[in-house]
């Protein structure tokens, strides 16, 4: 199953097609806006496929360090379980020391996939 183009390359091909051929053909401003949003969604998907594993691994590492807990399952299940535990603790008023710094780090990790330009503007 290593045939190419693989998922990230397919997503990139569709996004390039939209940008090069679909967008210039659209006259309606509202439709054009939605197609731009769709292209942006594909860009996020492409970054998820390219760097998502690395981002989730780091998120798990910093959450384990902060909470002192371990979770089992796939990386995404572990990240969700650790986040859920931390969210519940904060809701109860039990905020672990260093939570703000850890959550800032995680926000940056999320933005590297979802909105790297926003991250650049803010830092």
């Amino acid at each position, binding site marked *: 199953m290593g045939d190419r183009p693989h998922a990230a390359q397919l997503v990139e091909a569709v996004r390039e097609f939209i940008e090069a051929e679909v967008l210039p053909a659209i006259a309606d401003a509202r439709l054009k806006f939605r197609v731009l949003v769709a292209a942006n*969604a594909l860009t996020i998907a492409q970054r998820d496929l390219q760097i998502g594993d690395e981002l989730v691994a780091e998120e798990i590492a910093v959450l384990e360090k902060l909470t002192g807990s371990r979770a089992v399952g796939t990386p995404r299940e572990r990240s969700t379980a650790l*986040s859920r535990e931390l969210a519940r603790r904060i809701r109860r008023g039990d*905020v672990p020391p260093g939570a*703000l710094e850890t959550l*800032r780090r995680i926000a*940056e990790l999320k933005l590297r996939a*979802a*909105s790297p330009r926003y991250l650049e503007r803010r830092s």
Partner: protein
Amino acid sequence: MNEAVETALRDRLAELFGSGTQLVRAALLGGGASMEAWAVDVETPRGPLALLVRRAAGGRIYREALSLANEFRVLQAASEARVAVPRPYGYFPDVAGREAFAMERLRGETVGRRIVQKPELSAARAALPTQMAEQLARIHALDVRSLPFLPGANDEAPLRRSLEILEAQLDDVGEPHPAIELGLWRLRRDLPRDEERVVCHGDFRIGNLMVSDAGLVGVLDWEFAHVGDPREDLAWPLVRAWRFGNERQSLGGIGDPEPFLERYAQLTGRRLSIGELRSFELLGNVRWAIGALTQARRHLAREERSVELAILGRLAAEVEHEVLSLL
């Protein structure tokens, strides 16, 4: 489907404006699963009118949003109090099976990015901070007792109530967001005590204001009106997401907050510094972070399939980042 709506509109508008009223054009503008917007031109016995008709679309509306009947009543109250709003013409309980109301169709710009960027709107941008303050002052002077159906009308502690609602909404999202929880935790600790209860617009910001070359011509989108703390409305247009890329001008990307707060203080006696509003700016960001996630849930739960709603689930990370930067 659209024909049935047109036929019903023709009847309702003739009842409203008098027999002999002709429907010239009815065009469905955008709209989501819960609400339609129609641009309607009519020729009445007293002349032509450009109308905007909002009609329920059957989908589940947002929790906390007013019904169209109540939104119309708020619009009437605002219009009577000389708030700049589209003139409300009539409420119709049944337009092809769903409720609707007709109001004046104002001309101008509502798209936030264009209001922030367009060179020909530079005079409008200069005028907006004080104009926004003048409108908010009038809204906050509306008689709470005359609008008893508003959410929060019977609540003595609207800020506590806001936090409880936000917690419930975040729980409904169904995925953990510890960054937002940390914002809520700080708000439970730091949010000032409830002081005054006024009629709040609930979504007063660039993007919901109709703007012409001369500035503000109409305050739109009243479905989140409620009784609450005036400081919620004052801080909401400062939220970074409503600066539309012009981040240095913290009042909606169009100006500085000082003249806005100064004019509001002159008119209402409520003198607030940007520092005093900081907790409310945090509250606004927490609210929008949860709002963005909630809208993405509409897509994920198949209540309203839309790539625009879907992507908000990921762009919420920007708002989480802002929440943390305010802590």
